[in-house]
């Protein structure tokens, strides 16, 4: 490549020299004086400088000086100069010729650079346009790599997407997967113009979201960086779209589930009303005795229990769909604990309830019905999972801004990995499923009610002391 360039330059010097000799000879035949001949030669040198460059123009200018000396400086037809003025003229000619050559060479170089830049900008613009039209869907990396290669006319492209760890290649790019990913992990950009190889980190802000390697290209580093930025935006756009689509699908699925729960719960209400109106009506008539009365009482209580379960489902559906209205008022925690214990008295199954209140009266802003439901649920949970006959301790502690209510039972243990999950709907811990009856709804209702009150719910558990559920509620209103 270099010898070709030297050959080309040599040919141009030869052609230029021939032209200089010819122009000098013609000027001599036309009887030009020294100054006229110098001007004509200067024009030739300037033209060569503009067209071919500095080296060619410099060589030709030296030959022009020799020709002028030969044909126009006295004594004529010898390479010798008598007059000092002629020396000055020749010297000035050479200086001006070299200056013009240098300047024109610089102008030419800048023009070529600008042209190259414009072409690269055009390609980048085209790339950005085509990226915008890229369809959402699978394998965005591959489509992106193909697009970069075809638009920027590079030898090969390798692109790694750090979101889903996909690596795509196209064209001729003999880099290992590790080499492509290395740019992202090392967080460094590299260029090797000798072999036309560039590595770029795909960044969004300060976050690295992948890497891009271009092989066999002649692009300048800033164009490669611009292409990498465009690729990063395209990957991020695709990622956001896919995240949004997933969130939308999850939301729709949740709404559907809520609608089904709501519909089911309401469908249960009519037969339940008939059963409860009949059973409670029979009890109110007071005409039954002995076994009949006991059985009707059992039906009535179980129907009430079934109604409570249905209400839980309804409440969960409302909490999921955001349709629950919390009607807050000032509630005395001690009073509410007492009424919750009373509501559970039939179901306590031999467990003693030990209520430990803080010295002062604890008041919270809460929805009385919802709050009681949460407490009943915690008590029911403690009865189910506590060891038979063991006491259940309910405690109240006052913080500066919130009131903590704890419900502790003995004899059950929830492993650390399951403590968050027990609050998820339909989740039943590995130790409880099969051993105890339950729906997996109760604790999720507790958590959601607590959160609807801007409070928190969590559980502490150890194999020796048992399990303690804690809920907090704000002492003062933080907006209704």
């Amino acid at each position: 490549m270099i010898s070709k360039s030297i050959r080309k330059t040599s040919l141009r010097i030869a052609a230029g020299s021939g032209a200089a000799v010819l122009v000098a000879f013609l000027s001599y035949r036309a009887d030009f004086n020294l100054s006229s001949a110098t001007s004509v030669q200067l024009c030739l040198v300037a033209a060569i400088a503009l067209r071919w460059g500095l080296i060619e123009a410099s060589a030709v200018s030296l030959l022009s000086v020799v020709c002028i000396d030969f044909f126009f400086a006295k004594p004529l037809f010898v390479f010798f100069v008598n007059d000092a003025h002629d020396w000055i003229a020749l010297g000035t000619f050479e200086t001006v010729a070299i200056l013009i050559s240098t300047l024109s060479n610089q102008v030419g170089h800048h023009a070529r650079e600008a042209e190259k830049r414009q072409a690269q900008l055009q390609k980048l613009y085209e790339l950005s346009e085509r990226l915008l039209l890229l369809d959402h869907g699978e394998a965005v990396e591959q489509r992106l790599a193909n697009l970069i290669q075809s638009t920027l006319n590079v030898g090969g492209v390798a692109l790694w997407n750090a979101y889903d760890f996909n690596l795509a290649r196209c064209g001729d790019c003999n880099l290992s997967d590790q080499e492509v990913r290395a740019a992202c992990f090392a967080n460094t950009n590299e260029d090797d113009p000798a072999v036309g190889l560039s590595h770029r980190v795909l960044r969004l802000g300060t976050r690295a979201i992948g890497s891009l390697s271009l092989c066999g290209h002649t692009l300048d580093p800033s164009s490669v960086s611009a292409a990498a930025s465009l690729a990063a935006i395209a990957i991020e756009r695709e990622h956001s779209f896919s995240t949004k689509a997933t969130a939308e699908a999850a939301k729709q699925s949740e709404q559907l589930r809520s609608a089904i729960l709501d519909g089911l719960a309401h469908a249960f209400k009519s037969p339940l009303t008939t059963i409860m109106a009949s059973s409670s009506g029979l009890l109110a008539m007071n005409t039954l005795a002995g076994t009949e009365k006991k059985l009707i009482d059992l039906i009535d209580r179980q129907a009430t229990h079934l109604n409570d379960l249905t209400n839980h489902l309804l409440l969960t559906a409302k909490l999921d769909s955001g349709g629950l209205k919390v009607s807050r008022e000032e509630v005395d925690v001690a009073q509410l604990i007492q009424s919750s214990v009373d509501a559970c008295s039939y179901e306590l199954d031999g467990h003693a309830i030990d209520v430990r209140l803080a010295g002062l009266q604890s008041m919270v802003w809460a929805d009385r019905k919802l709050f009681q439901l949460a407490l009943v649920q915690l008590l029911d949970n403690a009865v189910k999972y506590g060891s038979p006959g063991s006491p259940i301790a309910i405690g109240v502690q006052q913080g500066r801004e919130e009131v903590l209510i704890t419900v502790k039972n003995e004899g059950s243990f929830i492993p650390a990995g399951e403590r968050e999950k027990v609050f998820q709907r339909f989740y039943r811990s590995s130790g409880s499923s099969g051993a105890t009856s339950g729906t997996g709804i109760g604790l999720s209702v507790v958590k959601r009610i607590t959160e609807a009150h801007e409070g928190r719910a969590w559980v502490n558990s150890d194999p020796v002391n048992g399990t303690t559920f804690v809920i907090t509620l704000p002492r003062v209103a933080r907006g209704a």
Partner: protein
Amino acid sequence: MMEQKSKVLVVEDDTGIRQSLFETLGALGFAVGEASNGEEALLRLRMVDYNAVLLDIAMPGMGGKEACRRIHRSYPQIPVVMLTVRDGEDDVVESLELGASDYVTKPFQIRELTARLRAVIRRHQALSAGPSAGPVTVFAVGDLSLDIAHRRVEKRGKEIILAPKEFETLRCLIENAGRPVPHQHLLKSVWGPHYSGEREYLRTIINQLRKKLEDDRTRPVYILTESHIGYRFRENDE
């Protein structure tokens, strides 16, 4: 002398519920009529002089709310108790605004239902049998004595000073004693039509009233909360 049975019209599209109410209310001392929709109910009301109507909110045809509106317009002397599966919902509030006297949420214990029915029948009979000299201006309940005309409230003989808004709220509740009064109704009556959404105002006033009237404001016995609906002032013999 045999006491005359109260006549109750049960309007309910679900046959099972209607039948169980017919049997149980009948056995508990009510004379029960049945209708499966609003249109049929209006027809029966023309023929029989009922003491109360038990009306399901969700029914085919004209629906419970429209039936309630028409019954209240044609027979204002007959109290209507709404049956609903959704407590705290807007249609309960709307029914109360349309003239319903009370509501019961399904499923219910029959004792609760009969207590509500007897209370509304008694209230309406007292109103229609009372002196025609005008509305009651002196109201006594528990330890409280309220003279609306003279804007005077006493507790165990000791006068309680109420702010104007507190008094107006109390008056609105007393005028509807025994009946749930929706938040919007109270706000519109006391503050004006543009304030129906300002529940915080109402909550503050109710808290103030409870502080002044109740022995223990956290366990109110006079001003009772109707969850998601509004408030109810205790009736004299509740």
